[in-house]
């Protein structure tokens, strides 16, 4: 038994301190107001304090922290993207994640499992090679592997997929990991609180005051807050916030669903993704299979569940793992994914002075939590886009410079 457990158990006051103070009413003014108490917003608050000494910060969360997509995603972390800019960005995130449990002194169950993106068609194999080559170029461990290597990592996988769509190979990505998603939000919340940031739950932004193109404050259900800098980090609620400042973006909301089985003893060690079958799956440390599929095809601002999602997903899961027929799905749920046309986020400054955006996280936001927090904190502190996020600037659409991630139209996550 690790010493730390003994220490916790023997300490009289077992429960530690509150992770973050229970605050009810915000002050009159803050240097920075962060809208959204998810992983991204809390990470930004944390790095504002840690990297830039900016601590007069309020994080406003309309529900409870980590209650949006942070707590709904399937917790996969990887960096095997298609564009060098994308790979560099997500690789920086992976690097922070690897040391984050220690840094935040909270076990995030960051578990490096290896990630296989299965290819069932020749054209998918070509895309896998493309990604592998770009990854290699920037020094990320990805490579195209054959069926043998997949079978070695996951001997239970039916390589013929019930004869429907045989697997030809895969993109293997060594650093592919899963983590305890809630923990990421809680750890950053505790860290941000420690630096002095104030976190307010049940605090909803009702409007944002902009004068002469500059942000001057936000109006909330708990009163008006003066501030010159506002970060919008609200994922599926982004269009509602940007509408408040009359900012037009390409973001539309599509639900993304997921489901989980009852726990079973560990057998699946790798993270598997199949674009053709619209499946991604990993086994959590509790023993559940955590599974997701592709985006729902139409816009809706709701995290409702649909039956056809789980029917389609399970049918494809059984193509891959026929022996799971009598394993039961315990729960399905959904989140609101803020989608962009080029499958890349929108980050950084906007035409409104003091209004910063961290959005367009679609189905890939969790893995970027640390690096988005870090780069957005730097962007706010310097009022200048961090170099890593230049590609993701809002003006790329007007410039017809969409990111190349659009080139690889397969299931991501």
């Amino acid at each position, binding site marked *: 038994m690790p010493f730390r*457990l003994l220490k916790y158990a023997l300490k009289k006051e077992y429960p530690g301190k509150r992770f973050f103070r229970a605050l009810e009413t915000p002050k009159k003014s803050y240097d920075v107001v962060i809208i959204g108490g998810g992983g991204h917003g809390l990470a930004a608050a944390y790095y504002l304090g840690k990297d830039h000494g900016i601590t007069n910060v309020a994080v406003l969360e309309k529900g409870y922290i980590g209650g949006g997509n942070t707590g709904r995603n399937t917790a996969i972390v990887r960096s095997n993207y298609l564009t060098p800019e994308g790979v560099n960005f997500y690789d920086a995130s992976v690097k922070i994640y690897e040391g984050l449990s220690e840094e935040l002194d909270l076990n995030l169950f960051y578990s490096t499992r290896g990630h296989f993106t299965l290819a069932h*068609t020749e054209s998918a194999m070509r895309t896998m090679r493309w990604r592998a080559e770009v990854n290699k170029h920037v020094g990320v461990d990805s490579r195209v592997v054959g069926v043998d290597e997949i079978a070695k990592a996951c001997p239970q996988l039916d390589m013929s997929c019930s004869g429907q769509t045989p697997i030809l190979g895969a993109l293997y990505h060594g650093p592919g990991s899963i983590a305890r998603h809630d923990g990421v939000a809680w750890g950053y919340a505790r860290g941000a609180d420690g630096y002095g940031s104030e976190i307010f739950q049940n605090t909803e932004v009702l409007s944002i005051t902009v004068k002469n193109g500059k942000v001057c404050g936000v109006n909330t259900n708990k009163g008006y807050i003066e501030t010159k800098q506002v970060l919008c980090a609200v994922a599926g609620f982004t269009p509602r916030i940007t509408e408040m400042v009359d900012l037009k973006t390409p973001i539309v909301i599509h639900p993304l669903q997921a489901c989980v089985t009852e726990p079973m*003893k560990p057998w699946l060690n790798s993270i598997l993704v199949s674009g053709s079958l619209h499946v991604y799956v990993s086994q959590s440390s509790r023993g559940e299979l955590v599974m997701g599929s592709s985006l729902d095809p139409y816009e809706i601002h709701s995290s409702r569940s649909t039956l056809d999602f789980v029917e389609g997903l399970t*049918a494809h899961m059984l193509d891959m793992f026929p022996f799971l027929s009598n394993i039961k799905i315990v729960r399905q749920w959904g989140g609101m994914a803020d989608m962009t046309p080029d499958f890349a986020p929108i980050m950084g400054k906007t035409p409104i002075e003091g209004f910063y955006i961290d959005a367009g996280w679609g189905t890939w936001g969790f893995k970027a939590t640390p690096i988005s927090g870090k780069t957005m904190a730097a962007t706010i502190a310097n009022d200048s886009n961090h170099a890593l996020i230049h590609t993701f600037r809002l003006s790329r659409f007007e410039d017809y410079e969409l990111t190349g991630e659009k080139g690889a139209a397969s299931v991501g996550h």
Partner: protein
Amino acid sequence: MSLRNPYKPSEWINRNKQINFMFEGEAFTAFEGDTISSALWAANQKVLGRSFKYHRPRGVLSLANHDVNILMTDGVDTNIRADVVEVKEGMKLYAVNTKGGVKKDKNRIIDFISPFLPVGFYYKAFHKPRWLFPFWENVIRKAAGLGVVNFNYPRILKRKLHTHCDLLVVGAGPAGLTAAYTAATAGLQVILVDENRCAGGSLSYDRGGDSITAEHLTTLLQKVNSLPNINLITGAYAAGYYPDHLIPIVGAAGITKVRAKAVIVATGAFEQPPVFRYNDLPGVMLGSAAQRLIYRYGVKPCNNGIVFTANNYGYRVALDLLDAGTSVSAIVDLRSGAQGGAYGDLCAVEIAKRNVKIYAGYCIYEALATSDRSRVSGAIICAYDDKNNVALADNKFTLDCDGIAMSAGWAPAAALLYQAGTQMQFDYSVQQFVPNRLPAGVFAAGKVNGVYELDQRMKDGERAANDVLNYLGKASVKINVQKSNVEKHGGTSPSHAYPMVPHPKGKNFVDFDEDIQIKDFENAAKEGFDNIELMKRFTTVGMGPSQGKHSNMSAIRILAKIRGLPVEKIGTTTSRPFFHPTPMGHLGGRGFHPHRLTSLHDWHAANGAVFTDIGAWKRAAYYLQSGQTKEEAIQTEAWAVRNAAGIIDGSSLGKIEVHGSEAAEFLERFFTGKYAQQKVGTWRYTLLLDEAGVVIDDGVASRMSDDLFYLSIGTTNAAAVYREMQRCQQMWQLDIGLVNVTGALGAINLAGPAAQKILAGLTDCDLSPAPFPLGHVRETLVANIPSKIIRASFVSDMAYELHSPMDQVPHVWAALLKAGKQHGIRAFGSDTQRLLRLEMGHAMPGVDTDGLTNPFEMGADWAVKMDKPYFIGQRSLAIINKRPVNKQLVAFTLDANFKGEMPLECNLVIDGDNINGRVTSIGFSQTIGQTIGLAYVKPYQKAVGTTFQIRTDNGSLVSATVVDTPFFKKQKEA
């Protein structure tokens, strides 16, 4: 010692049929109809499972699938829910998640070290030093999980059916039965579903020692069975509510997706365990579980029992226990006001008559275990301060027992209501959440509605049915239909406001799935997780396989207490499907995998074709002759096309006719080219962009007459392009008509130096190049089949594309093969076609473009007519045109003597540290004697003669030289 009682008419078992089975290596007998748990309990086996976290011994808690104390494996299946799964002859069962058997589980050690494993402990340890975590993770993963997966379990494809009805009633208890009967009497088509093997709900076990309920059950079942328009489905559960009243009913045989016009949720309530130290010992069970054992399975829950109650229901349970021959040594009633059978409850009066000792205002402070900790042996009892919810433990005493029945209250089985979007509110008269605002078409009745007295539940069912009739506009004169209100509950609350007994040593369990105790909630709150959702996530309450059925309400009450807030301020966690965990084989069911075949499919298959999926189509990729590799097959086929003749089945091509006086105008708007002046009998290239100017697809438009164009579209995009044409026509409203003839017409491409000769024998059409040059189209007979001949040059300058009715294509194909035999004709597949078109230098959208490529980058400037008034994507191209081109598709060759590692498609074009582009197509051309390809490069590399570097998979750099297209210059006629 058997706990089986003599026969009772209510029971669900067939005593004439004995069943033999094994549990943990020991032989047992059961009766047909027993569940695994009831059979084992009858045999006085009480340690039937081990808990998830602490590996504590567990027995029957709810016997209703509201807990997962007892999960088993039969060596084939895992996580079998023994409480509700019937035992079968020959079963060899073991409890899951034990080490060395359920009785001597070696992992029970974890229970003793549990103080070291407080709530959320895993967040606080194992992560330093970082490199040790994989070791700890491995330990944790092995300890977690329940059953072991059987990798040889067969794939099961259950049927998934659709059915429709006016009204779906979920739950066949008194409320549901009455509702179904009432609605059906008024003429509605009703489906009534219940998860239990027999209908009746609580009427089948909650007897209170009398016969009135049994009579009600008989009457109601007779009524329901008498109506043909009620479809009663038992042994199947409503798994979830989905929009527009779609409810999947999951049964053994499969799923029935019910689409109802209205739904009555009469799902009742889950009995909730009161929380006290060691409330999880085998032998401590819910009152309703005890009743289920007695009346459904003829099993005595225990010999000497104590009833721990906090409502009047416990007195009914006591009467039932007495009826079953259990001696009841005491009723411990948490409520001080219950002294001497107060509240006017008839059962309490009856109990008093039977000389059962009632301790009102008392609690069970702690259950006691036998020395082997395997079952309950007694209870420590003390007074309870009902106001402050604390045990007054100074004066406590001990009573012996071998069983404790608990009745403290209920939580509504409201999952479907929540999923449908019902707003619930907390009703203090019943200490329960009840529906406040129901969505249209959704109704609630019975206990889930906060209605508890039997008469009132039946009345509530009738009221709900009447509400449905009103809603559907089916109110008839015969039945007095009026919108009525749910009757308010009178008397004492069926649920206690806070049935929790704190204990300094804990082990007072709230969530049995996850071994969560009261102090876990307190600790979580102290660490800041004092929001119900945060608390759920931190403690994992309600996240186990029973999804909070027996624990969520207690969690809410405890949090309310901690925060000093009323329960309704705490709110509830979101309810998600499924009501019970649902097998993947049911949900997946029979998958439909539609595929399209051309009329030549059988020929391809008989001739060695290797098929590839292109959209829904199965296409022949190449034909494998014996001993050949794929590459050899492709080269052989390509050689034939270049030196003799080849034919390919192109029937999967999209084929669309655009009729009407404004057909040319339609094309001019839709594609980038010009068509107004196109001559009849010729074809032109078509290029389709999206509004952002990105290349989507290309093809060929043949003008058959002034007012008719015939379009050929790539297989992959055909459906989407046709759909987009239809949408544009909706907006443009031109005088045109679109006819999709993709499936009606097939296509054969005949190519190669001998093509003209072969075709000449099958048609009267003059094929000589002067009257019928490239770029022209004819309509004629080919092998007596009316066909179009398109002289396209996709794979060869010497090629004829023949479009004929799909069902006649095999005839044309056979005629071509016959006529071409002497010329060495050979069929070729789509992979070969890709090489051939590469030799011709044709870029293919989707292969040589990606989701961002514009026509300038692709080198299709010539096909884009910016001087037209409008085409889709034109305005964006005008913007893009002002910017420098960033990449350029070029044709390249490798050195003729190149011998190194062959570059592959999607290998990168590298210049120093920069990625300049990628190879999009590459192949060795025997005809040209070189490796040829297409690649994106930076504009500074695009000039013919420039060399650039391609990096192969193994990292070596290969030089390539930019060349002109086509690679394959001019086909010599044979």
